[in-house]
């Protein structure tokens, strides 16, 4: 009867060791990210055409003016994170073909959510757009 006890013990040892090792390896492989502060984008409000859009691909965002309303959209596709392209009708994703209206509303799949709206503020003719960077 000693045999099962010993194998149970060695199984427990192996389990403990692999849990400890796995935890250590996990901690080792996921470093603390360098804290990036909120990324702020500032552009002159006059750059955004009336009833049109200004696309800032480097900043991965678009600023859309619709009458008096101004909104900023994240260009990351809410489906799988490709950068969407501006089209005549709005936006289209080159990776899986999702389509959005110019206000970011999804019109065709596979995306199931609208494009993310970013906080935008107008002060003295300057638009500041901010996004949380992970």
């Amino acid at each position, binding site marked *: 009867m000693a045999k099962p006890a010993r194998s149970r013990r060695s199984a427990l040892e192996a389990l403990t060791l692999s849990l400890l090792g796995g935890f250590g390896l*996990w901690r080792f*492989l*996921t*470093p603390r*990210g360098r804290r990036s502060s909120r990324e702020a984008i500032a552009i002159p409000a006059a750059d955004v055409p009336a009833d049109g859009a200004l696309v800032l*691909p*480097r900043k*991965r965002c678009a600023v859309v003016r619709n009458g008096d309303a101004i909104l900023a959209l994240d260009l990351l596709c809410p*489906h*799988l*994170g*490709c*950068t969407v*392209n501006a*089209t005549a009708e709005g936006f*289209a*994703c*080159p*990776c*899986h*073909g999702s*389509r959005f209206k110019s206000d970011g509303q999804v019109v065709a*799949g*596979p995306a*199931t959510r609208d494009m993310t709206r970013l906080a935008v503020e107008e002060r003295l003719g300057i638009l500041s757009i901010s996004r949380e960077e992970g």
Partner: protein
Amino acid sequence: MVTALLKHLFPRRVLETNLRITYTFGLGGLALTTLLLLFGSGLLLLFYYAPSPERAHGSIQFLEIDVWGGGYLRSLHRLSSHALLVLITLHALRVILTGAFKRKQRLNWIVGCLLLLLAVFTAYTGYLLPADQLAYWATQTGMELLRTLPLGGGFRSLLVPDTVGGPLTLLRFYALHVVMLPGAMFALSMLHFFIIRRQRGLLPYAEEGGYVNSTPRLFRLVTGGFVLCSAVLLLAAAFIPAPLELPADPAHAPNPAKSAWFLLWIQELVSYSSSAIYAALVLIAMFVALPWLPVPELERASWFPREHRWLAVLVLTACGFVLALTAVGLFMRGPNWGFVSPF
């Protein structure tokens, strides 16, 4: 001495009937040949590749333009990896369609599945290394796909500690691609061969004699396959150059942005709905669990056994499905992933 060592990888005696080329087509041996070519060409590429986002693309350009034979080696490495993926898949299909996956072979089936999955993963990590547009976008879409799976976020943070275009991620993919994954694949393929040897060659199921010495007939086949496969790839590499796109640019996705061909069927699948990824996962899980599924045991392995007819139909249908998705993704997807005519 070296020959003797290599001979020990193989069984000493084999069933004469299993030496028929039409039984196995030597697919496993051919896959090992491409793996060896990958090790050789990859080792030489190490002399020039710089695993940092700023220098990676430039180092490949230097290799292609200023290094004698550099472009050839890169092409050989790329073609061999494609050949490996095709050969392992065909090898797995051969094992399924001849019914050679039950009982005693369960362990080797799992080892083989691991080898197939590792081959795909190694190829995927290799795609990021040139740091061109294809590299960036194929990796980006793949990693976002991973995030949608249960526990996927955790795996993603293991693989991508900063961002897909970032230095830590490139270094991590590099370490996996050149040390961890090839090491694991080498060890597992040796284990794969060892298990076959221990089982005295490909299982006959029914012991009915008919064994012959492996020397010289098995080794003649092995050497022939090795030489033929190497020759085809060495020649093809001279005529089919490996592409290098513009440096990775997170601001501008190529339109359409297509992933690596061997993952294109999954991209096509999720372009209908994100949850379609579960269909792919179920398919893969069933593939791995095949020896445990209620499939009748066979007296002996042979092509398209009558007892496994429904299994053959199912497997060939699944293959056709994956091939069709790949073909649609390859030839019928245009700007913004819209349908275009292939002609």
